[in-house]
């Protein structure tokens, strides 16, 4: 296995795009090293991007945040300004593995792995985040739902990799939340996850996006669930309607982590709880 650790993004693009064999990016390494160890994959090139300075930054611009592909989960959760603005995305990022994993794993890695259960992803989708992709022919931006094509699959060309995540600034009277269900209190892969992003005007929900994780081949943006809350006030009726729609919209499978029935039920419960929590956050802030 060839190992490269380029120092600049340009070098990285060159190395990666010019190599024609099986290749992978090493950022946090918390997924790829497991895959190496368990023989899931044997890449011929592994390119470490952690030494590239511009990929190691969290930057705030006028109307968006830019998080580099080399930024560890711990560095995101430690960023007070970001986590205050996007507590839900931060929750998702903070749930990726143990303390040790947090110090290595990256949000871009969590996303690139394209696991439907990735904790970092639902809240990103709910926030309308995008990725910046670099390749031989320059940069392009892509919505996350368009990026992920299925379990473990990304809509990217072989010369491309993700350099950054772009997250819009949060709106006024808005907040987000991510909740997942696991059988223990830590160290598990989400059996179900739910991210929501919510805006409130005059006690009514003025904008909302409900996104479910681990209940389909990729994260599910439930348009119907989101629409059901639009214009509504938060009460037992609107929440039970939301719960019902999410149960229906979830398209899970039976596996070692949960059953179809269980995942459907819990998807509804988590959606309800996540909306309540995001709503509470908005009320507390205002």
């Amino acid at each position, binding site marked *: 296995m060839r190992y490269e650790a380029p120092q600049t993004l340009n070098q990285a693009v060159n190395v990666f795009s010019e190599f024609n064999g099986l290749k992978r990016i090493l950022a946090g390494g918390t997924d790829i090293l497991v895959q190496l160890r368990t*023989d899931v994959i044997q890449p011929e090139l592994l390119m470490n991007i952690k030494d590239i300075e511009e990929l190691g930054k969290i930057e705030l611009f006028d109307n968006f945040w830019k998080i580099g592909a080399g930024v560890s989960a711990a560095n995101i959760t430690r960023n007070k300004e970001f986590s205050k603005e996007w507590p839900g995305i931060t929750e998702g990022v903070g749930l990726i593995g143990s303390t040790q994993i947090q110090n290595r794993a990256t949000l871009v890695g969590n996303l690139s792995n394209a696991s439907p259960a990735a904790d970092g992803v639902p809240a990103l989708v709910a926030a309308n985040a995008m990725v910046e992709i670099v390749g031989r022919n320059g940069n392009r931006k892509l919505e996350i739902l368009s990026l992920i094509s299925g379990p473990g699959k990304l809509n990217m060309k072989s010369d491309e990799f993700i350099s950054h995540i772009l997250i819009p600034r949060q709106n006024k009277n808005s907040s987000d939340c991510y909740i997942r269900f696991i059988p*223990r209190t830590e*160290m598990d892969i989400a059996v179900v996850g739910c991210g929501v992003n919510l805006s409130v005007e005059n006690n009514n929900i003025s904008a909302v996006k409900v996104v479910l994780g681990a209940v389909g081949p990729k994260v599910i943006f439930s348009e119907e669930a989101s629409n059901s809350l639009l214009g509504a006030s938060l009460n037992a009726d609107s929440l039970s309607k939301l719960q019902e729609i999410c149960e229906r919209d979830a398209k899970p499978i039976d596996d*070692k982590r949960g059953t179809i029935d269980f995942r459907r039920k819990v998807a509804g*419960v988590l959606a309800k709880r996540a909306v309540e929590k995001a709503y509470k956050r908005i009320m507390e802030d205002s």
Partner: protein
Amino acid sequence: MALDNENKNFFDVVGTRPIRPDGIEKVTGQARFGADAYLPGMLHGIILRSPHAHAEILNIDTTSLDNDPSVKAIVTRKDFSPDLKGEDWNILENVMADQKALYDGHAIAAVACSSLLEARDAVKKIRVKYSLLPHVTDVEEAMKEGAPIIREGVARSSVPKDMHPNIVGYHESGHGNVEKGFIEADLIIEETFKTEAAHQGYIEPHACLVNMMPDGKGEVWCCTQGHFNVAKVCAKLLGTDASQIRVTASEIGGGFGGKTAVFIEPVALALSKKANRPVKMVMSRSEVFRATGPTSSTSMLVKIGMKKDGKITAASGTFKLQGGAFPGSPMAESAMCAFAPYDLEHVKNVGWDVMCNRPKQAAYRAPGSPMAAFAVESVIDDLCKKLKLDPIETRLKNAVKEGSKASFGPRFERIGLVETLESAKSHPHYLAPLKDGYGRGISCGFWFNFGGETSVSLALAEDGTASLSVGTPDIGGSRASMCQIVSEELSIPYEKVRATIADTATLGYNEISHGSRVTFATGLATIKAARDMKRKLCARAASNWGLEEDAVYWEKGYVKPAGPNAGNHDPLSIIDIAKTMGRTGGPIVGHFEASPEGAGVSFATHIVDAKVDRETGFTSVDRYTVIQDAGKAIHPAYVEGQFQGGAAQGIGWALNEEYIYDEKGVLQNAGFLDYRIPVASDLPKIDTVIVEVPNPGHPYGVRGVGETSICPPLAAIANAVSNSVGIRMKELPMSPPRILKAIEENNG
């Protein structure tokens, strides 16, 4: 001098909490565990394992490795002894498959290469042609007519004729007439229960470093609970003499019964023999789950009859345990432990030993008992609820005491079940009001404990310090306890004693560290060896003084003349005698070899508060208390540690741990990610109460403590869950999907 059988009631060192003698090595990373050994020129061995649950092995093709210079040896079944019988054959068959792969992960072949990466690559190039056979992994399915046959002709003579060949053992015990007893009952509850296999989950994977010399002498370094057994098994499997295989036990990173069995050492020796080089083998975590010995999964039927006043009139239980693709599940232990806490006039225990396509089960902390307690204590709880009886009072009403006839036969000597229940009744935990939504669960548990072959040697150094050699690997701090015992007996400071786990060439045979036997049996042997040394010290002093042996006596580290007739001699300290021992008759060594009987049984009562999230089925454990009879706690901190560790493992087993097989019989969760042992944030503080009802079979009153602590938790949690959401969970683990399903079914 009646030193030998003197029972001690007052202690200076025993009962204190000194720092363990192997502590510094363990907190600085210097302690050497199984995988921490290296030898010049050593190779790395890797095992090729079956990806199929059940298959005929048609051909093993290694030709692709013929010209690979990194491959130094390849072994298959034909490299092991061809003429083993009985359990020896079973062990070999498990270590390396013969005609058939019997479970997912079964060893098929092994290679040794100069580096680990080369070995990992090489093993992938071996081509095995399999012919797939139908498989079965469930105990009930395996007993049914038409179930795939694992192997014919294995059944013991106890099994009734014309049963399915997978049924290989039958046990029956009890007394009285249960039919008569059930007629006397005011209420009878009969229920079936199932538990899934759980793994011991020790953090250190199996590892060894071996060297087989051309003259047949072998050296083995490995992590094991019983290195004498490793020597015995390796010698048999390789067709050599036990005394030619010298085994040194490394520090051991957890065992809980799982390291009583032998898996990789014979394979490494066979590779080493072929390559004429040392060979190191370390299992991956996935190999540990797939191919070592988890405990049995079970299917159980329990029936108990009770009077309105709480008196049990009769109890019967049938316990079906699968032991993997081999005979030997602890079904008799399940049957015998099930009703052991209760004084019953009419009781019947039945056990079935069943084979299926899973790895050969190994002991796991009180093998067989926790599952049986889960079933029995759940039924008792339901009886209490229906008859509106207090769960502790009801258990007290039926509790066994000294002289009670045990459900498995003998009469109990002095025991401490009543004391644990009384202690529970007055414990602040039991008296505390329940938090909103929580349920409180109570359960009792029982384990036999064990003695077994034991041999120790205690040598006096010239400066009066002592060096103790024992043959039982230290799996939880036993060296500290042994040093305390020597210090207590010889009246020398704890720090002046060094305890070592001797290799198999140094001491007589020692039974494995299992059955909660070490503090009892090795402790007893150490007491006797120290007393042997004291006798020799007295004899030496007497001889120095020109007296008969009975003219002197031992007191607190000194030999003194027995009375005025013995003359006026200044007392001699151990140091005085040690200093001159070379000139006065030679080295002074105390020793003891025997198979001590009288391992006192141990009972426990656990209390737990748990709450179920009705919307997700998630159970959180808020408070937990272990109350157990230790007989006499030598090092109370490590006794508490055993109590807490057993409870934690039991909580994991109750809530989340399980072997998950897919429809092809392939294990789905062979790693710590999805085999979910409790993490630090899952557990509350586990409170402990050490009850001390001395064991009459031990000079200090010691009872084994390691295993009993895992017996009550499964039922205690089930009872707490039942009290939290009003649902009786009859299947383990009580994972969130199972609990949520039960809640919904209950809601109709």
